[in-house]
Structures are given as C-alpha cells and as structure tokens.
C-alpha cells in the first residue's frame, strides 16, 4: 500500500529525497528520537516499510535509502561506522574518524559517489542516498535499522535523525556513468608530452545534466591545457583527452574523476615514465653484468683447478 502511495508521489516533479527520487516511506516522526540511543554503539529498528507482492530491486524500479541526520562529533580519538540496513542488508555506511581538533566523515554510495568531509565543527549534517541491496527489498514488511559500530575510542556524542530519512524509488539504473581508459600502463619519456585518452559512457536513466571531467596528476607534473573538461550533455557517452608532461620518473598514476554527478565515477591510469635513455640504463645491462660475473666465477674456478694440478705435478716431480 505504501508503495502505491509512493507511486502517487512519483508523479510529482520535486521530492525531498533528491532529483529523480520519489519518497515512498519515511521513518515515522515518533521513531526519530530512538536513533539517539545508538550514539555510543548498538542497533535500533526504526520501523518497517511494506511492499506489495512481487516487489524486487530493479530492473525497472529501483529502491534507494535516504539517511538524513545531524551527528555530534566527539573531541577525542575515535573510529566508528554508522550504517543503515533494510532486511539486514546494509545500504548506508558512513565512516567517522575523530581527533581532538577535527573529524572526517566519509561515505560511499551509487547516487552521490564517494564523499569525504573534514570538519572542525562540533556537529555535521549528513544527507546520504544510495541504492538498496537486492536482498534489502522484498514483498511484505522490510525493517529499517540503524547501527553504530564503534571500532575504537568514542566518535559521536549524539545522533539526531531528521525527517525525510527513509526509502525512495527511481527508474534510473545504478551504474549510470563509467570511465573507459587504457588498461595497460602508458609509457613516456620524462619531459615529453603524453596524451591521456578517456571515454565517459552513460547508460541513461538519470536526467542528462552533463559532467565535468577533472584530471589529477602527481605533484610537479605539468598539465598542458585545462585541468577540467566540461560536457554540457553526455548522450550515450563522450570521448576526450588530456595532455600532460611528466617531470618525475618511475611508475605513477594519473586520475580522472567526474564529480557531483550520478555515481561519481573515477579512474586511475598507470604511467611509466622512463628517463632519457642511456646505454647504462635498463634491465639488460644488469643481466649482462650478472652474466659476466658468473662467467668470471667459472673462469676463476677453472684457473684454480689448473693451479692445483700444477702444484700436484710440481710436488710429484
């Protein structure tokens, strides 16, 4: 029945859960204060959403979680994981690490991608969304649980769950954007320009809002041109390339990232930078040296045997 209500909401244009998402169930107001009970660790069930027979995660309708909360951060060292699950299948995992002067809050999901916030404030607000697990969607009642795992120390002083936390649906598939990049290391000589090609493919589902692709390179490397490339529309996908000049040798990585869009894909490309070639460089020389030394050892052993034979002959005479 609630799913039917959700479909009714789906016809509306805007939804508090975010663009493309349509809320079908929210943690009841009376259950919100119970979340505070796990601020020092533990699990609490905050209600259950019911789905009609035949409900499943995908392929046409996808269910997503929304976790909206204000976290009070401890001023002492601590490491903990705040998670939320439906039917014991976790779909929200937020790692919180606290220090006396700062805290980091990191999350990973398929709607907002990877997010990491470093804050000096005593409180932070999270508004996390992610696709539910396949096992977290079934017909009938689906319990919604909040858990805090304390890995060390104490990281939270309070949890205030905000209204809007709950379940939403979307017709968009989860793995929306993907990078296609070279899978083998790109080889280049130090100081020479290198082209980094990429393709950003889109499977459709979410509105086509375009994307900005940003390049990151090792410190001191030169980017010949802009660090970011903007595509106003992606369609099925777009191709592009960056040009860089390495200034250090050895194996390094350059990174590509499409931030603040869909599942925030990223890619790393290995680059092997060789120094300007000289006859003394390379593995061949060390093999040659090794061979020469081993042959030398053999020659010295033979010479030793000959000397021994001469000594024996002299002694016999």
């Amino acid at each position: 029945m609630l799913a039917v209500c959700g479909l009714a909401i789906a016809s509306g244009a805007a939804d508090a859960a975010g663009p493309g998402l349509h809320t079908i169930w929210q943690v009841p107001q009376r259950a919100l204060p119970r979340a505070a009970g796990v601020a020092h660790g533990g699990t609490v069930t905050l209600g259950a959403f019911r789905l009609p027979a035949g409900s499943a995660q995908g392929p046409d309708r996808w269910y997503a979680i929304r976790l909206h909360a204000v976290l009070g951060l401890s001023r002492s060292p601590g490491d903990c994981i705040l998670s939320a699950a439906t039917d014991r299948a976790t779909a929200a995992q937020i790692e919180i690490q606290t220090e006396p002067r700062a805290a980091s809050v990191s999350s990973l999901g398929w709607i907002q991608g990877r997010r990491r916030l470093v804050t000096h404030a005593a409180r932070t607000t999270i508004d996390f969304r992610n696709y539910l697990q396949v096992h977290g969607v079934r017909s009938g009642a689906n319990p919604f649980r909040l858990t805090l795992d304390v890995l060390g120390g104490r990281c939270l002083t309070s949890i205030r769950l905000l209204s809007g936390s709950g379940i939403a649906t979307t017709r968009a598939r989860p793995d929306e954007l993907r990078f296609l990049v070279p899978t083998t290391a790109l080889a280049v000589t130090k100081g020479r320009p290198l082209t980094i090609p990429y393709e950003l493919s889109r499977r459709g589902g979410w509105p086509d809002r375009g994307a900005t692709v940003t390049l990151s390179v090792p410190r001191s490397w030169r980017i010949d041109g802009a660090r970011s490339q903007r595509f106003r529309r992606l369609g099925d996908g777009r191709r592009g390339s960056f040009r860089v000049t390495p200034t250090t040798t050895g194996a390094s990585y350059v990174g590509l990232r499409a931030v603040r869009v869909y599942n925030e894909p990223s890619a790393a490309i290995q680059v092997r930078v060789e120094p300007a070639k000289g006859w003394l460089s390379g593995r061949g020389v060390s093999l040659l040296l090794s061979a020469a030394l081993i042959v030398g050892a053999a020659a010295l052993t033979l010479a030793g045997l000959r000397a021994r034979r001469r000594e024996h002959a002299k002694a016999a005479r």
Partner: protein
Amino acid sequence: MRIKLRHLYLVAAVCALAAGIAVLPANVIGSSTTNLRTLGFGYGDSIYNYDFENQTVDARHVDWATSLLFYNNANVNKIKTILEGSYWIYGSKENANLNDSGSWEWDQDGGMKTDIPSCLGSDAHYRVYAPSANDRFYNPTFGYYLFGTTHHDHHELCDASYDDSEGTEHDIANRMSARGYYTRYDYAWFYNAQFDTQGNHRFNNDGYATYVEVP
C-alpha cells in the same frame, strides 16, 4: 701459513658468483601460477584471483590466491578490528588489482598476522583489499564488501618459508563463525586451486573462497 694461489682463485670465484646472483634483477625471481584470471562481482566490479608481488599484473609474480570475501557491511578497518584479538601484527605490503568504476586500479595492504616474525616461530597472515580511496566496494548484490588472501609465515627472520593459505582461511572462518558472523567456508569457486612448491613459497589452495557476512 702460506696462502696458496688456488685458494685465492676459489675465494674470488665464490665472491664473483655471489655478486652475479645479487645483481640479477629482482623481478626475475617470483612465484607463478597458470590460474590467473579476473572474477566479476556484478555491476562491473572485478578483481584478480591472486594478489601480486609488484604493481604489475603478471602470472609469474603472484603472491597468494584470493580466498576470502567479506560482504554486506564490511570495511577494511572494521574487519581488522573484528580480528585484532588474534591478528595483531602488521605484515609486509602486497598488491591487488581491482576494478570498481570502469577502470583497473591498485590497492596495497600489509594485512595482519598472529605473531611477530622470528627465527623459529610461525604465524597466520591475511591481507584484505578494496578500492584504496574507499576501503570498500559497494554494489546491490554484495553490499559493502572486500576480499582477501591468506597464508602462513614460517621462520621469517632466518630460513623463511610460506605456505598453508587454506589453513589460515579456515582459521579466519572459524574465528568469524565463533563471533556469530554467518560464515560459509569454501563457498565459491575462485578458479585458483594450486598445490605446488616454488622456492620457499608452497601453494596449498583448494580454489574455493570463504564468504563471511558482516552485519
């Protein structure tokens, strides 16, 4: 006592032989497998079924077979915290190649061991891998998950040898099960069964990985 010429020749020969072996490129020596392949976990997520000695995908330089999968609500820190009562010493780093967002990337982990290295002792050692920026994968089939390799270290500070990935996998399965985690020992075929000895590296892996559900 007079030193004979042939003795000098012998000493020089031994020195030259040792030097020759020492300057052999380090990457000439390594453990190899004929089973190296990728494993898909859905939604484009993939891993290799072995970890590697270097950050190069090379069947001649693998380290250990992938034998563990922690899923649902796993995270590198969380798994290490759960097991830290038994596995409490940091190990040396190895490398895993994985694909989480359409491209292959490397993750490094030293893992955790049950004892400090010594001349006469042995210890169980596991390593866990996930995209390095996130310390976990996510997909709707496995939830938050990561994978791992296992083995035993022997006499590490003297005549070091390494073996028994199956034994450490079994030990971790037992420990997780004893703590109440839903554990399925040897649950999935990972195509990496290997029983052979290469130098001081003895492979003993049945090819099946253990799955542990982390609530």
